């Protein structure tokens, strides 16, 4: 049953290592953010250009801004999209009993996967943020601004993109790194052989 030994054997080291790894990454969060966004922003700006949208992310020191050239809007946005990178990296660093090679391989895989989702998030953000802004305007101003916005950002994508964005933010973003870890760390998690599963 629930013994002191089973508690101490590896859940506690996992927690301690995870906390240390996440804490260390936390100390360097600004440097990580700057470097990571320096890689992501040109790619997503390139996608906007391919679509012919006059939208771009601009990094100014510690601030990430979303600038709508034709519309004259400029929004300051969160620059912490890399947070689940911390989760992913810390989980693999913290997993006991695995080689450095295993950790490096899976950290590269999780960073690659999460980067794709971050690009998608930044791209969807270009649509969702301007619609959220329009929706938050007072009734008198909304109609006029909405007309300008709808010329560039078609309304039919509003519902879809906003819902994808919202669901991903709540459910997908924190889960993906965990899911990759669950698969990679299957031995550590004692996912049993078929016969043992039947006994259990």
């Amino acid at each position, binding site marked *: *049953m*629930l*013994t002191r030994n*089973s*508690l101490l*054997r*590896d*859940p*506690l080291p*996992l*927690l301690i290592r*995870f*906390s240390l790894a*996440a804490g260390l990454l*936390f100390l360097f*969060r600004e440097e990580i953010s700057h470097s990571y966004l320096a890689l992501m922003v040109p790619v997503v700006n390139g996608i906007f250009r391919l679509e012919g949208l006059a939208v771009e992310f601009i990094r100014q020191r510690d601030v990430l801004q979303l600038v709508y050239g034709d519309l004259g809007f400029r929004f300051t946005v969160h620059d*912490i999209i890399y*947070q689940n990178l*911390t*989760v992913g990296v*810390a*989980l693999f660093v913290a997993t006991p009993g695995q080689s450095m090679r295993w950790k490096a391989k899976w950290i590269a895989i999780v960073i690659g996967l999460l980067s794709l989702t971050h690009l998608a998030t930044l791209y969807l953000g270009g649509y969702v943020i301007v619609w959220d802004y329009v929706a938050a305007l007072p009734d008198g101003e909304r109609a006029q601004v909405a007309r300008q916005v709808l010329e560039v950002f078609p309304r039919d994508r509003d519902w879809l993109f906003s819902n994808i964005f919202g*669901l991903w933010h*709540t*459910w997908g973003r*924190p*889960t993906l790194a*965990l*899911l990759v870890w*669950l*698969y990679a760390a*299957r031995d550590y*998690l*004692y*996912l*049993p*052989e*078929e016969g*043992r*599963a039947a*006994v*259990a």
Partner: protein
Amino acid sequence: MHLTTSFIHSQRRSLRFCLFFVACLAGLAVVFEFSQSFFGWAYMYPVSLTAVGLLDLMSLEATLNTAQIPVGFCELALRQIIYRVTFDCTGLFALLVFVSLTAAYPASFGKKGIALLLGIPAIFVFSSLRLVVLGVVAYVEPAWIELFHVYVMELATLGFMLFVWKYWINSVCVERGEGRC
């Protein structure tokens, strides 16, 4: 094609676990999206109330306004500061992930019941403490609240949830008599 089939065959237990986990979490997400008021009263309210009680014990006078629970938040007032408690703040998503992980893991129903009896109260208490920490941070250094809310406490909650879950896995494993445990 043959390689894919062979890969799936060789990895089917872990793939089945991952797929079952995603399915359980998706199911809980749907339930949550359609019954936020229930989760508000059944989880957010008691967690927030416990946090208020703990803050009072620390001589930090706190009050709770529950009028907005049906729309997904309540207001915790700590002296001059009003703190909006959302589902994100209460660790609910970590709890639902824990439930999904437990449901997906190959173990008997009895063992899964033990996991829920162990994990739900543990995460409940941790989430109340999380609100207390956020309340104290909001009171002592309001500029740090965003950092603690979005980063520090999120990671702490995930780490704690995995700690409880791994603790339970080891107990399952011990019962199976697997030497590795």
